[in-house]
């Protein structure tokens, strides 16, 4: 079963990657006032149980995939 973990920089945390991408987009004339760059992890977990899959995704996100000081995460099952 697939679990997707989205990791985003917390509001107010400096994001140099997003800033650089934003400058490039604006250089191309897209008129973007801010870009926040995060990460996507697609986990194919060894279970068919949606609740168990969500638990694994949330534990992996909290323990490894994100750092609570600077990032928040969202877990999507299916």
């Amino acid at each position, binding site marked *: 079963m697939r679990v997707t973990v989205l990791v985003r920089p917390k509001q107010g945390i*400096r994001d*140099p990657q997003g*800033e*650089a991408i934003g400058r490039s987009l604006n250089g191309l004339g897209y008129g973007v006032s801010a870009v926040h760059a995060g990460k996507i992890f697609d986990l194919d977990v060894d279970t068919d149980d949606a609740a168990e899959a969500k638990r694994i995704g949330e534990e992996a996100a909290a323990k*490894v*995939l994100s*750092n609570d*000081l*600077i990032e928040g995460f969202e877990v999507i099952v299916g």
Partner: protein
Amino acid sequence: MAKVGVITFLGSLDDRDALRAVSTVGGTPVPLWHGDTDLKGVDAILLPGGFSYGDHLRCGALARFAPIMAAVADFAAAGGPVLGICNGFQILCEADLLPGILTPNHGQRFICRDVDLIVQSASPWIGNRPVGESITVPVKHGDGAWFHPQEGLAELEANGQILLRYSEDINGATDRIACITNATGNVCGLMPHPEHAVDPLLGSIDGQLLVGRLTAA
């Protein structure tokens, strides 16, 4: 002579310089391997700089799960001296052995040059040099902006855990903080490289203060 273990992770770069620096300050260097769980009876531990696991995910985030890190955590909890330099600092923060986290330099540039660091708190980690004195040590990093929420910073300062600040804002670190310790003072981390400043030929010997603390154990 104090035995100082230097841990080589997959992607460590400065382990050999660190081993040599330990010898320079009169210690016995002991190479340690990330996959081991035995600290070989060392009196102090140094986590060197580099790009462990290719800096994938976040700097130091994967190395913190290396087999030897459980032994390092036990060693630190028992009061043993542990120094993390650059990537070693990042690993100690990710492992929650030090407060805060290292994030990308705000200027989006890799920085490689000597920096002046101002003593904030007299500590054996910097030879008990007086507050306000300056030491010179090189930096070389792209992810060196130490971040800590404003909440709790005053407590770190009051505890004397903030040892060095950059004399100028080079990377966006919170309050220009360059070097910190844990609450008990036996674990220390910094982005600058003291192991590259132990010989007059290298331009500065101020790095001997930090590496030398490990041999005083």
